């Protein structure tokens, strides 16, 4: 635990004090397995993560397991800790991480990797998995980046693949049993863990490379561990563990609101989208379950906003029922509903009225590409008419600010596709003035377009694509800017250098760990923060390590190449992804799962209240 004297000297001391309402304290004497659950970013970001809330609750639902929280201290605190010999501690008990049985990291985005090393270093835990002895905690990683965690494989003992609420309890059980019956050693535990479904122990799989740097082979070191690691899913969302209590932060975090997880997965099949493939099959909660869970959450946390969380909320078939049931009691309590992932083709007047009944918020839509041709390539499946309809509904309802998300650098993109983005934004503005039903006296329309750069992601039909080189992306950003002349259109773009580094890591292999280690040694951390991100330093590090970042980001991967993430089985098959890639180049739209099953393979994982045919 940290002293007041130090806390008085650092910025935002509220990040480090713990003691929140809803935190879980246990008697150490009753505990057989202690978890330190780390989010490798600041407290404010980590505390807003729904996955971590769920896993914190599910592990703590076991009487002999105690899971605590830990976040990356800001640089001023890191300095104080080093100067005063304070090792990184967990918030609940204040005990140093090195005393825990298991230290877990949730890997939500690639640019958190240096923070993982920062935290291990502050905890005094050896950074390399093969340098850890019997006294070291087991270091485990999970979350979306664990599906291709090869760039950080050398730092982790185990990866949890897929949904963790059941799997992590099983892993703890194995740990406790082996400790109890005396069969535990670090080596034997890792071997046994590798046999559990959904756990990848990277040190037990040898990788060999071809002369050109591509992968030759993944070879399991034992015969009794699987050759591919199958992801875990929770089959029935209505019966899944649900955290009734929330740790209530004292300080303001990114999302101070109830996050009501409506469903997992998305049946649309956008070809650039990783989440849409990783989290298949779609599994939904019933409206009744959700309404009850929302009531419980409100009683236990008191937030005045409920965010309906899903990859595509307007695709939830019982959305109307759910909103009506929620509004029965939320309106009275002045609780606002927010729907963060609206699709323009399923947005209705009724839906908008429901979400704006208490607090007004702007509307955000994601057409993703500027022309119908390119939208067909990415299988976005919406047309300009949908957007105009959605905009009209918004204007009639008195909304005048609309945010549009796009991507640039998508496969097959031409300059006219970029112009299309500017035109779409213009049309949304025009729709306001052409609309006689718009609410009188409302503010003039404001359209914000946010343009991200395409990143080829593992487990998508575009996983083989080359990312546009940095200069091409920068030129495209400039070109689009030149096409936007209307002052009512605000143009934002993502930093292309960041997207480039993300692409390197997203499709990286184990050889990148050398660069990440070196980056840590040279003081890099908080790469996802503008004030810390240093592209030039990263490029220097790659050069010094003999790594060509373009090999990972800007190379078209061969279709018959063994990919670093082929060792993971997410349910969706490589054959399906390849079919989808071909359909993309044929500019052919694939119907969504509700219209027609395309045989992606995810149905073999099972799942209740899904749209999949039974396997």
């Amino acid at each position: 635990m940290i002293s007041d004297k130090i806390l008085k000297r650092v910025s935002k001391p509220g990040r480090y004090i713990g003691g929140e309402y809803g935190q879980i304290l246990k008697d150490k004497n009753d505990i057989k397995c202690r978890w330190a659950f780390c989010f490798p970013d600041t407290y404010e970001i980590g505390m807003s993560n729904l996955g971590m809330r769920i896993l914190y609750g599910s592990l703590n639902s076991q009487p002999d397991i105690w899971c605590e929280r830990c976040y990356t201290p800001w640089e001023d605190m890191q300095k104080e800790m080093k100067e005063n010999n304070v090792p990184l501690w967990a918030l609940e008990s204040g005990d140093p991480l090195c005393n825990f049985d298991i230290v877990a990291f949730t890997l939500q985005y690639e640019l958190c990797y240096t923070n993982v090393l920062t935290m291990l270093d502050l905890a005094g835990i050896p950074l390399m998995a093969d340098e850890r002895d019997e006294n070291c905690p087991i270091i485990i990683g999970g979350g979306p980046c664990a599906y291709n965690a090869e760039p950080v494989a050398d730092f982790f003992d185990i990866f949890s693949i897929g949904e963790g609420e059941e799997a992590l309890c099983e892993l703890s059980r194995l740990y406790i049993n082996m400790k109890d019956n005396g069969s535990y050693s670090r080596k034997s535990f890792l071997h046994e863990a590798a046999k559990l479904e959904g756990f990848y122990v990277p040190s037990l799989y040898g990788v060999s490379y071809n002369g050109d740097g591509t992968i030759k082979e993944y070879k399991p070191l034992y015969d009794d561990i699987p050759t591919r690691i199958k992801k875990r899913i929770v089959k029935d969302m209505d019966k899944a563990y649900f955290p009734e209590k929330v740790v209530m932060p004292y300080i303001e975090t990114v999302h101070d609101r109830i996050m009501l997880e409506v469903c997992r997965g998305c049946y649309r099949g956008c070809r650039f989208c990783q989440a849409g493939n990783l989290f298949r099959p779609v599994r939904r909660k019933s409206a009744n379950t959700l309404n009850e869970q929302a009531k419980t959450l409100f009683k236990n946390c008191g937030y005045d906003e409920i965010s309906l969380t899903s990859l595509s909320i307007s695709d939830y078939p019982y959305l109307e029922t759910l909103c009506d049931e929620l509004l029965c009691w939320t309106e009275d309590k002045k609780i606002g509903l927010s729907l963060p992932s609206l699709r323009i083709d399923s947005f209705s007047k009724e839906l908008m009225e429901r979400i704006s009944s208490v607090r007004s918020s702007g509307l955000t839509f994601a057409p993703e590409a500027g022309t119908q041709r390119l939208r067909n390539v990415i299988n976005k499946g919406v047309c300009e008419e949908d957007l105009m309809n959605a905009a009209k509904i918004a204007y009639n309802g008195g909304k005048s600010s609309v945010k549009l998300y796009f991507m640039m650098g998508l496969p097959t993109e031409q300059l006219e596709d970029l112009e299309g983005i500017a035109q779409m934004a213009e049309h949304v503005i025009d729709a306001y003035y052409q609309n006689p039903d718009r609410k009188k006296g409302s503010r003039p329309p404001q359209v914000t377009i946010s343009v991200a750069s395409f990143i080829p992601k593992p487990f998508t039909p575009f996983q083989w694509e080359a990312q546009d080189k940095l200069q091409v992306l920068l030129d495209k950003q400039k070109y689009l800017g030149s096409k936007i002349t209307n002052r009512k259109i605000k143009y934002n773009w993502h930093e292309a250098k960041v997207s480039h580094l993300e692409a390197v890591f997203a499709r990286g292999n184990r050889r990148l760990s050398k660069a990440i280690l070196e980056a840590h040694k040279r003081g890099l951390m908080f790469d996802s923060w503008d004030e810390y991100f240093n592209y030039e330093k990263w490029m220097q590090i790659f050069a010094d390590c003999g790594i060509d970042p373009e090999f990972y980001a800007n190379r078209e991967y061969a279709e018959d190449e063994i990919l670093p993430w082929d060792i993971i089985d997410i349910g969706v098959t490589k054959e399906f992804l390849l079919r989808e890639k071909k359909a993309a180049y044929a500019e052919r739209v694939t119907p969504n799962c509700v219209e027609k099953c395309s045989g992606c393979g995810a149905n073999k994982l099972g799942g209740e209240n899904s749209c999949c045919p039974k396997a």
Partner: protein
Amino acid sequence: MLPQSVRIKFQKINVLKFISHLDLCRTMKTALLRAGIPVWYTEGFNPHPKMVFSLPLSIGTESECEYMDIKITEEMSFDEIKQRLSDALTADMAILDVYAPEMKFQEIGYATYEITPYASYDLSPLSKDEVNITKRTKKGEATVNVKDRIVSVSENEGKIYMILSADTERFVNPEHLLALCKSEDHRIVRKEVYTRNMKIFR
């Protein structure tokens, strides 16, 4: 008569000294909602529970006498409010008392502080004729002589006790005085709030 004014006295101790006033407001708001207190909302575009606080506490200072006024729109006994709100907060922010306000916040004149020093200090600067502290204001830094705002400073069994002016215009932060005394490590707890007539505030 509804809506009825209710005064809530609470503490803010231990690690909560690092929580800002704004964060305290947010915490209280969620606590009121999870406690199911029928709190009166402000009207307008963005309705929120009406809460009025007495003296905002500086970060780093603890207190056993914080006050918040709310209004309730339905009958609820003071005991029940106390119970429900206590259950919705941690012990460091325990609810000490709930009652109908007897005085106005504007009547507050003084506060007492108990200081536990953990390192060396020298109180002599406080007994000089002028006690100048530098305050940061909108116009820049200003030096103010606060001698007449210090009612008393005493020591007893290793602790320092101060009675200081606390009304808005003349508020003295004990941390500033301790800086003059070269005390670098200490605990400050606000113990009691008084009116201008030196009556215990209620």
